[in-house]
Structures are given as C-alpha cells and as structure tokens.
C-alpha cells in the first residue's frame, strides 16, 4: 500500500474512534441531539408567537439555530481534544509510525460529522413543524455548502482552542462563548430594536452574514435588507478567513504542545 493509503486508513480509524467516543457518552450525546429539538420548539412555540412579524417565526429562526448548535458542537470538539491530550493516548499514538496529523484530522472529521447530524436534525424538525423554504436545488446546495464550510472552520478553531486550553474544563468555557455569540446577531431577532452599541456589534459579527446568507438562499430575502449575494460574500470572507487561520494554527499548536 502507498503511504497515502496508509494516511487514509489512519485517519479513518481515528475518526471511528472519536465518533465511538461521542456515541458512548450518553449524556453528551443526548444533549447534542435534544438541544436542536428543544431549542426549535422553544423558539417557535414559546417566543415565536410574540416575535411573529413577517410570516411564521420558524421561517426566520432555522439558520440561527443551525449556527447555535454548531457553536455547541465546536465546544464539544474542544473538550474532546483537551481530554485526549490530558490522558496518555496521544503520546501512544505519536510513538507509533502513523502521521501525527491523522490524530487532529480524526477529531475535526468527527466534529464535522456530529455537527452535520445536528444540522440535519434542525432542518428535519423545522420542516416537520411548518418551515417552508425554497425548493431550488441550487439554493439548497449553496446553503449546505456554506454550513459545511462554516462548521469546518469552527471545528479547526475548536481544535486550536482545545490545544490552547490546557485542560477539558477550560476548553468547556469555549462552548459558553460560542453559545451566546449568536444571541447578539440576527439569529433570533432583527437588530432594529437593539441599543446602538449592541446593534453595531450584531450587524458586524461573523455569525450575522452567515445566518443572513442561509436566510436569503432559503427564504428569498435577508432580514437586514442587504442582498443575499452581498451577505454571501462577507460570509465567505469570514469563514474562509477563519479556516485559513485556524487550520494552520491548530496544526502548529498540535506540534508545539506535543513535542516540547
């Protein structure tokens, strides 16, 4: 077998290990699955009535929930990596003749899988309770493409955070930040009613253009009034920028933390 084949085998085994670990932590797994469902029902049926402005609230809220769940999932990834580093298993892997990058790749690929599952759940439940987005294949492909890119960037960022955190507990606080950031964006309410300082932040933070791009693609119009193409350009700049930073950063940090 060629060395590339070996790299693929190694990475596949690592992904399998990480996913197995995810399924076997019943508490975390249950939370990860329940979170999208409960939040969806909570926002649509508890808050949604009061927030109803232009059409059903579920039409507004789906992209925001996807981003929120991705933030939660990224926290899980950071904790999983920090836990591995705290134990001896990474040392064992590194003393074996396998490519060190497979270890990191395993975590990121597992993170991508978990988060796409959560995204599918949000979309499924949304459709189940009356969300009626576009049926255009191209618009769907665009929205899903952006989600994959966004989750990938967030997963690499999570990996970098997990490496920097120095322990599972510290890594956990990352979840907290990412879970609250979407609230100060256009995820759940338009920015019109926010105080000007908050509004400035909400309109310019990376989650807003990402959410608005999905909204524009699925529903045909954004909530900010800007064109979908405009939001998409900013969203792509943010996600690609984040990916271009977090990927090499995580790789570098991994090498640094494990070879000193």
């Amino acid at each position: 077998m060629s060395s590339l084949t070996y790299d693929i085998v190694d990475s596949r085994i690592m992904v399998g290990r990480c996913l197995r670990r995810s399924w076997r932590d019943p508490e975390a797994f249950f939370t990860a699955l329940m979170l999208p469902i409960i939040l969806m029902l909570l926002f649509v049926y508890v808050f949604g009535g009061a927030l109803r402005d232009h059409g059903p609230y579920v039409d507004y809220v789906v992209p925001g929930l996807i981003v929120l769940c991705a933030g939660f999932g990224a926290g899980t990834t950071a904790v999983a990596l920090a836990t591995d580093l705290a134990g001896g298993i990474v040392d064992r892997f590194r003393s074996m003749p396998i490519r060190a990058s497979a270890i990191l790749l395993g975590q990121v690929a597992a993170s991508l899988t978990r988060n796409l599952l959560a995204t599918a759940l949000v979309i499924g439940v949304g459709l189940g309770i009356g969300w009626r987005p576009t049926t255009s294949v191209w618009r769907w492909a665009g929205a899903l493409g952006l989600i994959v890119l966004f989750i990938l960037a967030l997963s690499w960022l999570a990996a970098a955070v997990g490496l920097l955190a120095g322990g599972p507990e510290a890594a956990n606080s990352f979840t907290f930040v990412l879970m609250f950031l979407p609230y100060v964006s256009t995820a759940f309410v338009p920015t019109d009613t926010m105080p000007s300082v908050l509004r400035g932040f909400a309109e310019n933070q990376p989650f807003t253009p990402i959410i608005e791009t999905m909204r524009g693609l699925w529903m045909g119009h954004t909530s900010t009034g800007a064109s979908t193409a405009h939001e998409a350009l900013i969203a792509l700049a943010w996600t690609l920028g984040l990916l271009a930073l977090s990927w090499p950063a995580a790789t570098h940090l991994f090498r640094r933390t494990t070879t000193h």
Partner: protein
Amino acid sequence: MSYTVIAEGIRKSFGAQVVLDGVDLALDRGSVFGLLGPNGAGKTTLVRILATLMRPDSGRATVAGHDLLTDPVGVKGAISLTGQYAAVDDVLTGRENLEMMAGLLHLGRRAARARAAELLAEFDLTDARDRRVRTYSGGMRRRLDLAASMIRRPELLFLDEPTTGLDPRSREQLWGTVRHLAAQDVTILLTTQYLEEADQLADTVGMLTAGRIVARGTPDELKSSLGTEIVRLRFPDARAYQSALAALAPSAGGTGFTIEAADDGALRIDIPTDGSSARLRDLLDLLVATGGSTAAGSPRVSTHRPSLDDVFLALTGTADTAGATPAPRSATRSELAR
C-alpha cells in the same frame, strides 16, 4: 555485542531548569535496563526523548539502528511505549483498543481481529474483552497497555513506571508479564522509583539523579560496592547506644569495624562486615566488653545485604529521595536473635 540503544550526551532543559545533563546510555539487545531515580530525576524526559516524543537540546542516539533525529519514523517502527498513565482509551472496550492499535499498525482488519484475540488471551483479559476499559482495575489496564505494546513485537519496549499505583498482587503479576516479554528477546527500558522493582527485573541498572546517571551496573555489582553484609544494631536505650558508638569510633582504634551509618534518633548503628559468623561474634564480644550490650540494655541485631536503597542513599546522600520508596526489604535479609 550488539546494542538496541546507544545514546550520547543527551541534554534537555526546560527554561532555566536542566532536566537531563549529558546522559550516555547503551542497552544490550534483549536485556532489561532499569532506569532508577526519584520523582523529577528526568526519567520520563529521557523516555520521551528516546521514544521520539521530544527532541533533545543536544546529544545523539541510535535506537534499533535508526538515528533518533534524522529517522524518527524508523525509530517509531521499532519501539513500543507503555506510559506512566496507561495509554489506552477508557471509553472503548479492551478488544476495540487492541483492534484500533493493530489497525494503526496496518495489520488489516482480519489480522487485527485475530491478533487482538491472541493478545487478550495471552494477557488474561479474554473475559473482560467486551467491557469498557473504564471498568477495568489498575492491573488490568496496565496489562491491556502492555498487550497494545506487543501487537507487533517491538525491538525496544519502554515501560515507564509500569507498576506505580498498583497493589502488591497486581505488581507481582505484572512483573511476571515483564519477565515473559524479556524472555521473548525484547529489549526493555524500564523506569521505576521502586528499587525493589529494578532489583527484580533489571539485568543492568542505571541510577539517574539530577539529570545524570551517577552509577550503573548489575544490581549485585552495585550492592557489593557497599560491602557484602550489613549488621544493624538497634539499641533499647541511649546509654548503650552511646557506649557502642564510642567503642566503634575510629578514635577507639584497632577494632577493625567501621560505622556505615548511625541514627541518634532511632538508636541504630549499621556496620558492614564480610558476613562471617566469626566477625559477627567479634563484634558482639566487643559490644559486651565495652558496655554496648548489657543484661539490661542489649541491642537487637539483624543483618542484611545492602539493598539498592542503600546504594542509592550512599550515592545521593539524600534520605528524602529514597523516602518516596516504600521498598519492601529484600528477602536476603535475616533477622537474628541476639
């Protein structure tokens, strides 16, 4: 003579703290080398360097014919590492752990499964194979860790404090396993802070303190460097102790005995002898004659061969370091009635 490891002048510092200060090492093929030292002596750092997990600041080493610095992948292919913290995945089952490691060594799925089953049987884990490692006892975890290291018979096996935290029975069991591995021609680098463990397992011992190997040799060579037999006198009262101390002091002249160690608090004197009954009798006669032994204050006498603890103490002069070692006394020691 062929060597599995040759290391020269290995140095490593973390900031201003020098952890390894020029370590030379040569391990014969198929031997068990015991690297002995207190916590913080640099044992784990040396293992991490030789296992390619860390780069030395300077120095060079060859492991199983591969240069450590220029061919780390070759080194990785020849070694197995069993760490201080059992490096297995405790969320997976024993079987899954072994199959995963076998997969990473590119055995192929069917071969991986077969090898895992073999090792589970060999390391007495077959009954527990489908239980998560989290539910394993300390001894079972270490056995699984060792099994994982033996998926492909390595040329060099690192055992970094393999029995730390194990109960005495599991420790004995693990020692048996290590002997079994050594018999399979695997070169073993064992680090331990238990001198008894090095005595039991190692062909050669190196004593590492403050980043340097201060002594090396077989356990017997190291012990005989302190004389063959130590007579230990424990006195019931300070008066008898002081009399004996005075009688044995160099200033008393011509007794032919020297004091190896004396402890005012414990009223204890250690005297090296050749171990013959004649010498012991001379010593006891001397004590009776000088008031070190009276009907009212007669010392208890025991003899023992110097343990590695004694060697270690003599070399480092710090009781503190060996204090971390609740070393069970060696079996060669015999209690004598007075």
